């Protein structure tokens, strides 16, 4: 089966690279929702988070966070969305997992808002009982501290980006 995202990962389709290591790749999306839209994905063909090794998911999140800050500042955005869609009804287009980082501006024509649903109290209680299993879900402290990529240590740069983001956010009521 051919997968468009696998072609990005293998370099068969050449795109503007934002990050790469052995396991993951980040590029500007060739099908962007907004200018500067980035995608971060595992190189291996894996569709959803449960299939991706935890260490790889962590790295995807770290890179998405870094890119979010960098691109936000560079495009002069007013916000960013970080999104993962799993499954066709959720809007996933390829059976290859990815994290989207989408710079946002007011009146950019995008909207990911939702109407609020009223859920009856007894249905809420049922859902709660159903989901409230998860002792097994506990995230154990990692037995070995993963090697910190040198690349993520640039605190100075990061702080600057953070400040910038915060300035933008003062408008939140």
């Amino acid at each position: 089966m051919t997968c468009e995202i696998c072609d990005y990962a293998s370099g068969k389709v050449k795109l503007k690279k934002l990050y790469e290591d052995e396991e993951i790749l980040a590029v500007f999306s060739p099908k962007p929702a907004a200018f500067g839209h980035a995608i971060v994905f595992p190189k291996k063909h894996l569709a959803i988070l449960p299939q991706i090794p935890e260490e790889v998911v962590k790295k995807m999140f770290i890179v998405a966070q870094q890119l979010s800050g960098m691109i936000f500042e560079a495009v002069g955005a007013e916000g960013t969305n970080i999104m993962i869609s799993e499954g066709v009804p959720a809007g996933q287009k390829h059976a290859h997992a990815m994290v989207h980082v989408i710079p946002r501006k007011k009146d950019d024509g995008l909207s990911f808002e939702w109407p609020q649903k009223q859920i009856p109290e007894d249905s809420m209680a049922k859902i709660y009982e159903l989901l409230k299993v998860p002792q097994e879900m506990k995230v154990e402290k990692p037995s070995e501290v993963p090697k910190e990529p040198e690349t993520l240590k640039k605190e100075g740069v990061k702080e600057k980006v953070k400040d910038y983001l915060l300035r933008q956010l003062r408008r939140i009521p």
Partner: protein
Amino acid sequence: MDQQCIFCGIASGSIPSKKIYEDDKVVAVLDIYPANPAHLLILTKNHYAIFNQLPKEEVEHLAAICKRISELFFRVLRPEGINFFIANGPAAGQKAPHMILHAIPRFSGDGLHFDIPVNPQDEKELDAFYERLKKTLKDYFPDVDFEAQAEAPKEKEGKEEEQEEAKDEKKNNDKDVNLDEITEMFS
């Protein structure tokens, strides 16, 4: 913790909520104004306005929780999909000054729209933008060769190991939801 912030209150327990998961860093609670039934809010116990403020350790923790919530949903709720969503800033749809990772189970015909549209872009503008951004990228990621073609994932050498892994995966799938079902939806 921010005394004024209701989500800090929910995370600390001073405001009651239906918690389905809690550890020292995060809680996951049922949203009382959900987009869909079982919509979860994953909140950090520390007060951060936006995702970008989270220290590395907490981002990694959130990633691990996200993976587990996805597993939990697919096993227990059997949705047809899930959206994970973070809004940074009002322009992105952020409503409260506390970083929230939304986990929204999806069903076809549920009336929600998280489809990411494709918009035209000026390639020349992007070229110029990329050249400018490269300086920052190189600061952040000095080990990455931005000029080189992306390299295909390396194949594992030990075939046996791979088979072993495949077996493990199969076992997991038998025990829980068949993840293949999800992948098959695309074909």
